[in-house]
Protein backbone atom coordinates (compact mmCIF):
# COMPACT_ATOMS: atom_id res chain seq x y z
CA UNK A 1 0.00 0.00 0.00
CA UNK A 2 1.14 3.58 -0.45
CA UNK A 3 0.57 6.14 2.28
CA UNK A 4 0.90 9.88 2.10
CA UNK A 5 3.48 11.38 4.45
CA UNK A 6 2.10 12.05 7.90
CA UNK A 7 -0.71 9.50 7.67
CA UNK A 8 -0.81 6.30 9.70
CA UNK A 9 -0.04 3.29 7.46
CA UNK A 10 -2.46 0.39 7.44
CA UNK A 11 -1.23 -3.21 7.60
CA UNK A 12 -3.68 -4.74 5.13
CA UNK A 13 -2.23 -7.48 2.94
CA UNK A 14 -3.25 -10.36 0.68
CA UNK A 15 -2.53 -14.00 1.53
CA UNK A 16 -0.11 -14.14 -1.43
CA UNK A 17 1.88 -11.18 -0.08
CA UNK A 18 2.11 -12.74 3.39
CA UNK A 19 3.01 -16.25 2.25
CA UNK A 20 5.71 -14.81 -0.04
CA UNK A 21 7.64 -14.16 3.21
CA UNK A 22 7.51 -17.80 4.31
CA UNK A 23 10.50 -19.87 3.24
CA UNK A 24 10.69 -23.68 3.23
CA UNK A 25 11.73 -25.00 6.64
CA UNK A 26 10.06 -22.17 8.56
CA UNK A 27 8.32 -22.69 11.91
CA UNK A 28 4.70 -21.69 11.37
CA UNK A 29 2.25 -21.52 14.27
CA UNK A 30 -1.44 -21.89 13.45
CA UNK A 31 -3.99 -20.69 15.99
CA UNK A 32 -7.50 -21.86 16.85
CA UNK A 33 -8.61 -25.17 18.35
CA UNK A 34 -9.73 -28.32 16.50
CA UNK A 35 -12.97 -27.45 14.64
CA UNK A 36 -12.80 -23.72 15.40
CA UNK A 37 -11.03 -20.56 14.29
CA UNK A 38 -8.26 -21.27 11.79
CA UNK A 39 -6.82 -18.73 9.28
CA UNK A 40 -7.83 -20.66 6.18
CA UNK A 41 -6.94 -18.16 3.42
CA UNK A 42 -3.34 -18.35 4.68
CA UNK A 43 -3.40 -22.15 5.01
CA UNK A 44 -4.77 -22.51 1.49
CA UNK A 45 -2.15 -20.08 0.18
CA UNK A 46 0.64 -22.18 1.75
CA UNK A 47 -0.70 -25.16 -0.20
CA UNK A 48 -1.11 -23.10 -3.39
CA UNK A 49 2.49 -21.89 -3.22
CA UNK A 50 3.76 -25.29 -2.00
CA UNK A 51 5.93 -24.00 0.84
CA UNK A 52 7.41 -27.23 2.26
CA UNK A 53 9.54 -28.73 5.08
CA UNK A 54 7.47 -26.77 7.58
CA UNK A 55 7.59 -27.15 11.33
CA UNK A 56 3.93 -26.59 12.22
CA UNK A 57 3.02 -25.59 15.76
CA UNK A 58 -0.56 -25.92 17.00
CA UNK A 59 -2.48 -25.51 20.26
CA UNK A 60 -4.72 -28.57 19.54
CA UNK A 61 -4.83 -28.60 15.77
CA UNK A 62 -7.72 -29.41 13.50
CA UNK A 63 -7.93 -30.47 9.89
CA UNK A 64 -6.13 -27.31 8.70
CA UNK A 65 -2.88 -28.96 9.79
CA UNK A 66 -4.04 -32.26 8.29
CA UNK A 67 -4.46 -30.51 4.93
CA UNK A 68 -0.87 -29.20 5.10
CA UNK A 69 0.33 -32.74 5.91
CA UNK A 70 -1.78 -34.20 3.08
CA UNK A 71 -0.19 -31.66 0.73
CA UNK A 72 3.25 -32.98 1.75
CA UNK A 73 4.40 -29.67 3.21
CA UNK A 74 5.07 -30.71 6.82
CA UNK A 75 8.33 -32.09 8.21
CA UNK A 76 7.46 -31.81 11.92
CA UNK A 77 4.41 -31.05 14.04
CA UNK A 78 4.40 -29.79 17.63
CA UNK A 79 0.81 -29.88 18.82
CA UNK A 80 -1.29 -31.68 21.48
CA UNK A 81 -3.49 -33.28 18.79
CA UNK A 82 -4.51 -33.20 15.14
CA UNK A 83 -8.20 -33.94 15.38
CA UNK A 84 -11.68 -33.15 14.09
CA UNK A 85 -12.82 -33.87 17.65
CA UNK A 86 -16.22 -35.61 17.67
CA UNK A 87 -16.37 -35.79 13.86
CA UNK A 88 -13.18 -37.90 13.66
CA UNK A 89 -10.83 -38.10 16.64
CA UNK A 90 -7.61 -38.80 14.70
CA UNK A 91 -7.02 -36.73 11.54
CA UNK A 92 -6.35 -39.03 8.58
CA UNK A 93 -3.26 -37.59 6.83
CA UNK A 94 -1.63 -36.96 10.22
CA UNK A 95 -2.30 -40.57 11.21
CA UNK A 96 -0.98 -41.93 7.92
CA UNK A 97 2.16 -39.78 7.82
CA UNK A 98 3.00 -40.44 11.50
CA UNK A 99 2.58 -44.21 11.06
CA UNK A 100 4.76 -44.14 7.92
CA UNK A 101 7.46 -42.10 9.68
CA UNK A 102 7.05 -39.32 7.12
CA UNK A 103 6.58 -36.61 9.76
CA UNK A 104 8.16 -36.09 13.17
CA UNK A 105 5.68 -35.61 16.00
CA UNK A 106 6.79 -33.65 19.04
CA UNK A 107 4.51 -35.31 21.57
CA UNK A 108 2.97 -32.89 24.06
CA UNK A 109 -0.17 -31.80 25.83
CA UNK A 110 -1.58 -28.28 26.10
CA UNK A 111 0.36 -27.51 29.30
CA UNK A 112 3.62 -28.47 27.58
CA UNK A 113 3.04 -26.52 24.35
CA UNK A 114 2.15 -23.39 26.33
CA UNK A 115 5.34 -23.84 28.39
CA UNK A 116 7.37 -24.09 25.17
CA UNK A 117 5.70 -20.95 23.77
CA UNK A 118 6.11 -19.05 27.04
CA UNK A 119 9.85 -19.83 27.03
CA UNK A 120 10.07 -18.55 23.45
CA UNK A 121 8.20 -15.38 24.44
CA UNK A 122 10.62 -14.86 27.34
CA UNK A 123 13.61 -15.57 25.08
CA UNK A 124 14.92 -18.25 27.40
CA UNK A 125 15.82 -21.77 26.27
CA UNK A 126 13.28 -23.68 28.38
CA UNK A 127 10.39 -23.47 30.81
CA UNK A 128 9.77 -25.91 33.67
CA UNK A 129 6.56 -27.95 33.69
CA UNK A 130 5.86 -30.12 36.74
CA UNK A 131 3.83 -32.74 34.87
CA UNK A 132 4.71 -35.69 32.64
CA UNK A 133 7.13 -37.48 34.95
CA UNK A 134 6.48 -41.21 34.75
CA UNK A 135 4.86 -40.77 31.34
CA UNK A 136 6.46 -41.31 27.92
CA UNK A 137 7.10 -37.66 27.10
CA UNK A 138 10.74 -37.31 28.18
CA UNK A 139 11.51 -40.64 26.49
CA UNK A 140 9.91 -40.13 23.04
CA UNK A 141 10.76 -36.44 22.59
CA UNK A 142 13.79 -34.32 22.20
CA UNK A 143 13.46 -31.11 24.17
CA UNK A 144 11.99 -32.58 27.39
CA UNK A 145 14.75 -33.22 29.89
CA UNK A 146 14.01 -34.19 33.48
CA UNK A 147 15.81 -31.77 35.82
CA UNK A 148 15.80 -30.93 39.51
CA UNK A 149 14.49 -27.67 40.82
CA UNK A 150 17.47 -25.65 42.07
CA UNK A 151 15.29 -24.51 44.99
CA UNK A 152 13.53 -27.67 46.21
CA UNK A 153 15.44 -30.50 44.54
CA UNK A 154 12.12 -31.82 43.20
CA UNK A 155 11.95 -33.16 39.63
CA UNK A 156 10.42 -31.06 36.84
CA UNK A 157 10.53 -31.33 33.07
CA UNK A 158 12.55 -28.66 31.24
CA UNK A 159 10.52 -27.97 28.11
CA UNK A 160 12.63 -26.52 25.34
CA UNK A 161 11.43 -23.22 23.87
CA UNK A 162 9.73 -23.31 20.46
CA UNK A 163 10.43 -19.96 18.80
CA UNK A 164 7.75 -19.39 16.16
CA UNK A 165 8.85 -17.64 12.96
CA UNK A 166 5.34 -16.81 11.77
CA UNK A 167 2.05 -17.05 13.67
CA UNK A 168 -1.12 -17.33 11.58
CA UNK A 169 -4.33 -16.62 13.49
CA UNK A 170 -7.98 -16.01 12.65
CA UNK A 171 -9.92 -13.42 14.65
CA UNK A 172 -13.31 -11.75 14.82
CA UNK A 173 -12.24 -8.24 13.80
CA UNK A 174 -9.46 -5.75 13.40
CA UNK A 175 -9.05 -2.18 12.33
CA UNK A 176 -6.75 -1.48 9.34
CA UNK A 177 -3.87 -1.04 11.80
CA UNK A 178 -3.92 -4.61 13.13
CA UNK A 179 -5.61 -4.06 16.49
CA UNK A 180 -7.13 -7.50 16.94
CA UNK A 181 -10.34 -8.17 18.87
CA UNK A 182 -11.82 -11.59 19.58
CA UNK A 183 -15.19 -12.98 20.57
CA UNK A 184 -14.83 -15.30 23.54
CA UNK A 185 -11.50 -16.27 25.08
CA UNK A 186 -9.37 -16.33 21.94
CA UNK A 187 -8.16 -19.93 22.58
CA UNK A 188 -4.35 -19.83 23.01
CA UNK A 189 -3.79 -17.40 20.16
CA UNK A 190 -2.31 -14.71 22.41
CA UNK A 191 0.36 -17.17 23.60
CA UNK A 192 1.14 -18.12 20.00
CA UNK A 193 1.41 -14.45 19.06
CA UNK A 194 3.70 -13.68 22.03
CA UNK A 195 6.09 -16.46 20.94
CA UNK A 196 6.26 -15.35 17.30
CA UNK A 197 8.63 -13.11 15.39
CA UNK A 198 5.84 -12.11 12.95
CA UNK A 199 2.06 -12.35 13.44
CA UNK A 200 -0.46 -12.42 10.61
CA UNK A 201 -4.23 -12.47 11.08
CA UNK A 202 -7.25 -13.14 8.91
CA UNK A 203 -10.35 -11.35 10.21
CA UNK A 204 -14.07 -11.81 9.67
CA UNK A 205 -14.72 -8.08 9.91
CA UNK A 206 -12.55 -5.11 9.13
CA UNK A 207 -13.77 -2.20 11.26
CA UNK A 208 -12.87 1.42 11.70
CA UNK A 209 -10.29 2.44 14.29
CA UNK A 210 -13.07 4.26 16.17
CA UNK A 211 -14.84 0.93 16.73
CA UNK A 212 -11.71 -0.53 18.36
CA UNK A 213 -11.36 2.57 20.57
CA UNK A 214 -14.97 2.24 21.68
CA UNK A 215 -14.06 -1.08 23.38
CA UNK A 216 -10.30 -1.29 23.91
CA UNK A 217 -10.82 -3.91 26.62
CA UNK A 218 -11.71 -6.41 23.87
CA UNK A 219 -8.42 -5.90 22.06
CA UNK A 220 -6.53 -9.18 22.42
CA UNK A 221 -3.42 -8.33 20.40
CA UNK A 222 -2.44 -4.66 20.09
CA UNK A 223 -1.03 -4.70 16.59
CA UNK A 224 -0.24 -7.65 14.33
CA UNK A 225 2.14 -7.36 11.38
CA UNK A 226 -0.48 -7.86 8.67
CA UNK A 227 -4.23 -8.32 8.40
CA UNK A 228 -6.18 -10.12 5.68
CA UNK A 229 -9.78 -9.00 5.18
CA UNK A 230 -11.46 -12.41 5.10
CA UNK A 231 -15.18 -12.66 5.87
CA UNK A 232 -15.96 -16.30 6.70
CA UNK A 233 -12.19 -16.71 6.72
CA UNK A 234 -12.27 -19.70 9.06
CA UNK A 235 -14.62 -21.71 6.80
CA UNK A 236 -15.02 -24.73 6.91
CA UNK A 237 -14.28 -24.23 10.62
CA UNK A 238 -16.30 -22.13 13.06
CA UNK A 239 -15.56 -18.55 14.12
CA UNK A 240 -16.92 -17.63 17.58
CA UNK A 241 -19.75 -15.13 17.46
CA UNK A 242 -20.00 -15.35 13.67
CA UNK A 243 -20.63 -18.84 12.25
CA UNK A 244 -20.54 -22.52 13.14
CA UNK A 245 -18.37 -25.13 11.40
CA UNK A 246 -19.50 -26.57 8.04
CA UNK A 247 -19.76 -30.22 9.01
CA UNK A 248 -20.61 -31.45 5.49
CA UNK A 249 -17.53 -29.73 4.08
CA UNK A 250 -15.30 -31.14 6.85
CA UNK A 251 -16.68 -34.59 6.06
CA UNK A 252 -15.89 -34.05 2.36
CA UNK A 253 -12.26 -33.39 3.27
CA UNK A 254 -12.24 -36.34 5.72
CA UNK A 255 -13.52 -38.70 3.02
CA UNK A 256 -10.60 -37.64 0.83
CA UNK A 257 -8.11 -37.91 3.70
CA UNK A 258 -9.46 -41.33 4.69
CA UNK A 259 -8.92 -42.61 1.13
CA UNK A 260 -5.29 -41.53 1.50
CA UNK A 261 -5.07 -43.28 4.90
CA UNK A 262 -6.84 -46.52 4.02
CA UNK A 263 -6.03 -47.06 0.34
CA UNK A 264 -2.94 -44.87 -0.12
CA UNK A 265 -4.98 -43.17 -2.86
CA UNK A 266 -3.98 -39.53 -3.40
CA UNK A 267 -6.70 -38.97 -6.00
CA UNK A 268 -9.48 -37.69 -3.71
CA UNK A 269 -7.13 -35.37 -1.76
CA UNK A 270 -5.79 -33.89 -4.99
CA UNK A 271 -9.36 -33.47 -6.24
CA UNK A 272 -10.24 -31.66 -2.99
CA UNK A 273 -7.23 -29.35 -3.39
CA UNK A 274 -8.04 -28.72 -7.07
CA UNK A 275 -11.61 -27.79 -6.25
CA UNK A 276 -11.16 -25.82 -3.03
CA UNK A 277 -7.54 -24.67 -2.88
CA UNK A 278 -5.87 -24.43 -6.30
CA UNK A 279 -9.04 -23.64 -8.23
CA UNK A 280 -10.27 -20.44 -6.52
CA UNK A 281 -7.75 -17.65 -7.09
CA UNK A 282 -8.76 -15.56 -4.08
CA UNK A 283 -10.63 -15.98 -0.81
CA UNK A 284 -13.66 -14.36 -2.42
CA UNK A 285 -13.50 -16.85 -5.31
CA UNK A 286 -13.40 -19.58 -2.66
CA UNK A 287 -16.53 -18.20 -0.99
CA UNK A 288 -18.29 -18.05 -4.36
CA UNK A 289 -17.38 -21.69 -4.91
CA UNK A 290 -18.87 -22.60 -1.51
CA UNK A 291 -21.97 -20.56 -2.37
CA UNK A 292 -23.48 -17.55 -0.65
CA UNK A 293 -26.53 -19.41 0.67
CA UNK A 294 -24.38 -22.21 2.08
CA UNK A 295 -21.88 -19.93 3.78
CA UNK A 296 -24.42 -17.44 5.18
CA UNK A 297 -26.53 -20.39 6.32
CA UNK A 298 -23.79 -21.17 8.86
CA UNK A 299 -24.37 -17.94 10.82
CA UNK A 300 -24.37 -18.79 14.50
CA UNK A 301 -27.73 -17.17 15.25
CA UNK A 302 -29.47 -19.64 12.95
CA UNK A 303 -28.16 -22.58 14.96
CA UNK A 304 -28.40 -21.69 18.63
CA UNK A 305 -31.23 -24.02 19.47
CA UNK A 306 -30.51 -26.92 17.12
CA UNK A 307 -30.13 -29.35 20.00
CA UNK A 308 -32.52 -28.04 22.62
CA UNK A 309 -35.69 -30.08 22.85
CA UNK A 310 -38.98 -28.28 22.48
CA UNK A 311 -41.11 -29.00 25.58
CA UNK A 312 -43.57 -31.73 24.74
CA UNK A 313 -41.34 -33.30 22.08
CA UNK A 314 -39.32 -35.25 24.60
CA UNK A 315 -39.98 -38.96 24.49
Amino acid at each position, binding site marked *: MSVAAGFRADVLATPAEIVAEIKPGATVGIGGLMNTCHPMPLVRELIRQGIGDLHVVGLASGLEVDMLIAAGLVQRVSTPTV*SAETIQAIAPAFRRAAQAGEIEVWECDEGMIYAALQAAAQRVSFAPWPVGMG*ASYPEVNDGMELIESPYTGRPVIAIRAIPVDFAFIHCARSDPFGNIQVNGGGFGDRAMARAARRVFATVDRLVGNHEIRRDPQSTAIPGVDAVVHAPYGSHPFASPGHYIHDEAHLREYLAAGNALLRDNDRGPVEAYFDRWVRGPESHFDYLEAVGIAQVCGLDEGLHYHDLALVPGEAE
Partner: protein
Amino acid sequence: MSTTMERGYAIDELRACVISRDFVDGERVFLGANVNIGRAAVLLAHRLRGPNMKIMLGLSWTNMVDERSVGLHPDSTDFRDARWAECYVNLDTMINSYRFFSTTFVISALQVDRFGNSNLIGLGDSHKTPRLRGPGAIGSVSSTAYCDRFYITPPRHVKEIFVERCDFISSVGWHQGGATARTDLGLPGGGPRFCVTPLCVFDFEDETKAMRLRSVHPGHTVDEVIENTGFEVIVPDEVPETEPPRPEELELLRKSIDTRGLLREGR
Protein backbone atom coordinates in the same frame (compact mmCIF):
# COMPACT_ATOMS: atom_id res chain seq x y z
CA MET B 1 -25.44 -59.17 26.41
CA SER B 2 -28.63 -57.25 26.87
CA THR B 3 -29.46 -54.38 24.56
CA THR B 4 -30.28 -50.78 25.37
CA MET B 5 -33.93 -51.51 24.58
CA GLU B 6 -34.15 -54.44 27.03
CA ARG B 7 -32.32 -52.64 29.82
CA GLY B 8 -34.04 -49.32 29.29
CA TYR B 9 -30.76 -47.42 29.28
CA ALA B 10 -27.51 -47.34 27.31
CA ILE B 11 -24.31 -48.48 29.00
CA ASP B 12 -22.74 -45.05 28.48
CA GLU B 13 -25.73 -43.47 30.25
CA LEU B 14 -25.00 -45.76 33.20
CA ARG B 15 -21.31 -44.81 33.06
CA ALA B 16 -22.19 -41.10 33.13
CA CYS B 17 -24.48 -41.67 36.15
CA VAL B 18 -21.79 -43.61 38.08
CA ILE B 19 -19.25 -40.81 37.69
CA SER B 20 -21.84 -38.12 38.30
CA ARG B 21 -22.76 -39.60 41.71
CA ASP B 22 -19.14 -39.22 42.82
CA PHE B 23 -19.13 -35.44 42.31
CA VAL B 24 -19.89 -33.00 45.12
CA ASP B 25 -21.33 -29.52 45.15
CA GLY B 26 -18.89 -26.64 44.80
CA GLU B 27 -16.48 -28.37 42.42
CA ARG B 28 -15.10 -26.54 39.40
CA VAL B 29 -14.73 -28.84 36.42
CA PHE B 30 -13.27 -28.64 32.90
CA LEU B 31 -15.28 -30.45 30.28
CA GLY B 32 -12.57 -32.01 28.12
CA ALA B 33 -12.60 -32.71 24.40
CA ASN B 34 -14.41 -35.68 22.94
CA VAL B 35 -15.47 -37.43 26.17
CA ASN B 36 -19.25 -37.33 26.11
CA ILE B 37 -19.57 -39.52 29.21
CA GLY B 38 -17.61 -36.95 31.22
CA ARG B 39 -19.55 -33.99 29.88
CA ALA B 40 -22.86 -35.65 30.72
CA ALA B 41 -21.62 -36.72 34.19
CA VAL B 42 -20.58 -33.19 35.14
CA LEU B 43 -23.81 -31.56 33.99
CA LEU B 44 -25.91 -34.25 35.65
CA ALA B 45 -24.18 -33.65 38.99
CA HIS B 46 -24.51 -29.89 38.53
CA ARG B 47 -28.24 -30.10 37.95
CA LEU B 48 -29.05 -32.79 40.54
CA ARG B 49 -26.87 -31.87 43.50
CA GLY B 50 -24.33 -29.20 42.55
CA PRO B 51 -25.92 -25.75 42.36
CA ASN B 52 -22.57 -24.20 43.32
CA MET B 53 -20.46 -26.05 40.78
CA LYS B 54 -18.53 -24.05 38.17
CA ILE B 55 -18.39 -25.67 34.75
CA MET B 56 -15.96 -24.93 31.94
CA LEU B 57 -18.18 -25.31 28.90
CA GLY B 58 -17.62 -23.98 25.38
CA LEU B 59 -14.33 -22.50 26.64
CA SER B 60 -16.11 -20.36 29.23
CA TRP B 61 -16.80 -20.65 32.97
CA THR B 62 -20.47 -20.94 33.75
CA ASN B 63 -23.09 -21.97 36.24
CA MET B 64 -26.23 -23.18 34.48
CA VAL B 65 -28.20 -24.72 37.28
CA ASP B 66 -31.34 -22.80 36.29
CA GLU B 67 -31.20 -23.78 32.59
CA ARG B 68 -34.04 -26.11 31.71
CA SER B 69 -32.77 -27.51 28.41
CA VAL B 70 -29.08 -27.35 27.70
CA GLY B 71 -28.84 -29.19 24.37
CA LEU B 72 -25.11 -29.68 24.64
CA HIS B 73 -23.11 -29.46 21.40
CA PRO B 74 -20.62 -32.27 20.86
CA ASP B 75 -17.44 -30.22 20.32
CA SER B 76 -15.61 -28.64 23.28
CA THR B 77 -14.87 -25.49 21.25
CA ASP B 78 -18.47 -24.79 20.20
CA PHE B 79 -19.16 -21.12 20.98
CA ARG B 80 -22.91 -21.75 21.19
CA ASP B 81 -22.16 -23.51 24.49
CA ALA B 82 -20.55 -20.30 25.77
CA ARG B 83 -23.88 -18.49 25.86
CA TRP B 84 -24.08 -18.93 29.63
CA ALA B 85 -20.55 -17.57 30.12
CA GLU B 86 -19.67 -15.76 33.32
CA CYS B 87 -16.05 -15.59 32.14
CA TYR B 88 -14.43 -16.48 28.82
CA VAL B 89 -11.49 -18.86 29.04
CA ASN B 90 -8.16 -17.87 27.66
CA LEU B 91 -6.45 -21.27 27.53
CA ASP B 92 -2.84 -20.28 28.09
CA THR B 93 -3.64 -18.36 31.27
CA MET B 94 -6.15 -20.93 32.48
CA ILE B 95 -3.55 -23.70 32.36
CA ASN B 96 -1.11 -21.49 34.29
CA SER B 97 -3.54 -20.89 37.12
CA TYR B 98 -3.18 -22.44 40.57
CA ARG B 99 -6.55 -21.29 41.84
CA PHE B 100 -8.75 -22.06 38.86
CA PHE B 101 -7.66 -25.52 37.83
CA SER B 102 -10.25 -28.28 37.53
CA THR B 103 -10.92 -30.29 40.69
CA THR B 104 -11.53 -33.41 38.60
CA PHE B 105 -11.31 -34.71 35.02
CA VAL B 106 -12.65 -37.54 32.84
CA ILE B 107 -10.53 -39.14 30.09
CA SER B 108 -10.77 -41.93 27.54
CA ALA B 109 -7.83 -44.15 26.56
CA LEU B 110 -6.40 -46.41 23.83
CA GLN B 111 -4.84 -48.54 26.58
CA VAL B 112 -4.90 -48.63 30.38
CA ASP B 113 -2.83 -50.74 32.80
CA ARG B 114 -3.52 -52.09 36.30
CA PHE B 115 -2.23 -48.93 38.00
CA GLY B 116 -4.41 -46.62 35.92
CA ASN B 117 -1.64 -45.38 33.63
CA SER B 118 -3.22 -44.69 30.26
CA ASN B 119 -2.31 -44.00 26.66
CA LEU B 120 -3.64 -41.58 24.04
CA ILE B 121 -0.33 -41.40 22.11
CA GLY B 122 -0.52 -44.52 19.96
CA LEU B 123 0.12 -48.26 19.67
CA GLY B 124 3.28 -50.08 18.70
CA ASP B 125 6.97 -50.35 19.60
CA SER B 126 8.28 -47.20 17.96
CA HIS B 127 7.10 -43.64 18.42
CA LYS B 128 8.71 -42.77 15.05
CA THR B 129 6.56 -45.34 13.20
CA PRO B 130 3.65 -46.35 15.46
CA ARG B 131 1.30 -49.15 14.35
CA LEU B 132 -1.58 -46.84 15.26
CA ARG B 133 -1.05 -43.13 15.63
CA GLY B 134 -3.39 -41.97 18.41
CA PRO B 135 -5.07 -38.59 18.77
CA GLY B 136 -2.52 -37.26 21.27
CA ALA B 137 -3.18 -36.05 24.78
CA ILE B 138 -4.84 -32.64 24.09
CA GLY B 139 -4.98 -31.29 27.68
CA SER B 140 -5.22 -34.59 29.54
CA VAL B 141 -1.65 -34.88 30.84
CA SER B 142 -1.79 -31.63 32.77
CA SER B 143 -5.47 -31.90 33.66
CA THR B 144 -5.17 -35.39 35.16
CA ALA B 145 -1.96 -34.44 36.95
CA TYR B 146 -3.15 -31.27 38.64
CA CYS B 147 -6.71 -32.26 39.56
CA ASP B 148 -7.66 -33.83 42.89
CA ARG B 149 -8.88 -37.05 41.25
CA PHE B 150 -9.77 -38.32 37.77
CA TYR B 151 -11.85 -40.97 36.03
CA ILE B 152 -10.87 -43.25 33.12
CA THR B 153 -13.56 -44.34 30.63
CA PRO B 154 -12.13 -46.60 27.90
CA PRO B 155 -14.49 -47.16 24.94
CA ARG B 156 -14.57 -50.98 25.27
CA HIS B 157 -13.63 -53.58 27.88
CA VAL B 158 -11.29 -55.92 26.00
CA LYS B 159 -7.78 -57.32 26.59
CA GLU B 160 -6.37 -55.12 23.82
CA ILE B 161 -7.27 -52.05 25.91
CA PHE B 162 -6.82 -53.40 29.47
CA VAL B 163 -3.18 -54.37 29.07
CA GLU B 164 -0.33 -55.50 31.30
CA ARG B 165 1.79 -52.63 29.99
CA CYS B 166 0.83 -49.61 27.87
CA ASP B 167 2.87 -49.10 24.69
CA PHE B 168 3.10 -45.42 25.67
CA ILE B 169 1.86 -43.53 28.73
CA SER B 170 0.23 -40.11 28.36
CA SER B 171 -1.62 -39.80 31.72
CA VAL B 172 0.17 -41.25 34.75
CA GLY B 173 -2.01 -43.08 37.24
CA TRP B 174 -0.25 -44.81 40.12
CA HIS B 175 2.85 -45.43 37.93
CA GLN B 176 4.35 -48.72 39.17
CA GLY B 177 2.05 -48.89 42.18
CA GLY B 178 2.11 -48.00 45.85
CA ALA B 179 0.41 -45.21 47.77
CA THR B 180 3.41 -42.85 47.43
CA ALA B 181 3.96 -43.50 43.70
CA ARG B 182 2.79 -40.07 42.61
CA THR B 183 4.52 -38.00 45.27
CA ASP B 184 7.74 -39.99 44.66
CA LEU B 185 7.61 -38.89 41.02
CA GLY B 186 7.01 -35.28 42.02
CA LEU B 187 3.53 -35.16 40.51
CA PRO B 188 0.94 -32.79 41.91
CA GLY B 189 -2.70 -33.93 42.18
CA GLY B 190 -4.51 -36.93 43.54
CA GLY B 191 -4.48 -39.63 40.84
CA PRO B 192 -7.15 -41.84 39.28
CA ARG B 193 -10.21 -42.68 41.40
CA PHE B 194 -12.35 -44.98 39.24
CA CYS B 195 -11.98 -46.68 35.89
CA VAL B 196 -15.55 -47.03 34.62
CA THR B 197 -15.77 -49.57 31.79
CA PRO B 198 -18.71 -50.93 29.77
CA LEU B 199 -18.66 -53.98 32.12
CA CYS B 200 -17.75 -52.72 35.57
CA VAL B 201 -16.32 -50.11 37.91
CA PHE B 202 -12.74 -50.45 39.17
CA ASP B 203 -11.24 -48.51 42.04
CA PHE B 204 -7.64 -48.67 43.28
CA GLU B 205 -6.67 -50.71 46.35
CA ASP B 206 -5.22 -48.52 49.12
CA GLU B 207 -1.80 -50.18 49.61
CA THR B 208 -0.81 -51.32 46.12
CA LYS B 209 -2.95 -48.86 44.13
CA ALA B 210 -3.74 -51.71 41.73
CA MET B 211 -7.18 -51.96 40.11
CA ARG B 212 -9.82 -53.61 42.25
CA LEU B 213 -13.30 -54.62 41.15
CA ARG B 214 -15.77 -52.28 42.85
CA SER B 215 -19.01 -53.29 41.12
CA VAL B 216 -20.22 -55.15 38.03
CA HIS B 217 -22.89 -53.64 35.81
CA PRO B 218 -26.30 -55.38 35.69
CA GLY B 219 -26.30 -58.24 33.18
CA HIS B 220 -22.54 -58.84 33.47
CA THR B 221 -20.42 -61.14 35.67
CA VAL B 222 -17.14 -61.13 37.55
CA ASP B 223 -15.86 -63.89 35.24
CA GLU B 224 -16.65 -61.78 32.18
CA VAL B 225 -14.56 -58.95 33.64
CA ILE B 226 -11.63 -61.28 34.42
CA GLU B 227 -11.76 -62.90 30.96
CA ASN B 228 -11.66 -59.55 29.20
CA THR B 229 -8.94 -57.92 31.29
CA GLY B 230 -5.30 -58.39 30.28
CA PHE B 231 -3.96 -58.15 33.83
CA GLU B 232 -4.78 -59.67 37.20
CA VAL B 233 -7.69 -57.88 38.86
CA ILE B 234 -8.14 -57.69 42.62
CA VAL B 235 -11.55 -59.27 43.28
CA PRO B 236 -13.06 -58.80 46.77
CA ASP B 237 -15.20 -61.56 48.27
CA GLU B 238 -18.37 -59.58 47.67
CA VAL B 239 -18.79 -57.66 44.44
CA PRO B 240 -22.02 -55.64 44.32
CA GLU B 241 -24.00 -54.82 41.21
CA THR B 242 -23.58 -51.29 39.85
CA GLU B 243 -26.67 -49.23 40.57
CA PRO B 244 -28.42 -48.62 37.24
CA PRO B 245 -29.49 -45.10 36.20
CA ARG B 246 -32.26 -43.72 38.41
CA PRO B 247 -35.41 -42.46 36.64
CA GLU B 248 -34.62 -38.82 37.49
CA GLU B 249 -31.09 -39.21 36.11
CA LEU B 250 -32.29 -40.72 32.83
CA GLU B 251 -34.99 -38.11 32.39
CA LEU B 252 -32.57 -35.25 32.91
CA LEU B 253 -29.96 -36.83 30.64
CA ARG B 254 -32.36 -37.34 27.75
CA LYS B 255 -34.52 -34.25 27.98
CA SER B 256 -31.93 -31.69 28.91
CA ILE B 257 -28.29 -32.72 28.66
CA ASP B 258 -27.76 -35.34 25.95
CA THR B 259 -30.63 -34.28 23.71
CA ARG B 260 -28.80 -35.50 20.61
CA GLY B 261 -28.52 -39.01 22.11
CA LEU B 262 -24.73 -39.31 21.77
CA LEU B 263 -24.52 -41.60 24.80
CA ARG B 264 -27.19 -43.87 23.39
CA GLU B 265 -25.17 -44.05 20.15
CA GLY B 266 -22.04 -44.93 22.14
CA ARG B 267 -20.20 -41.80 20.93
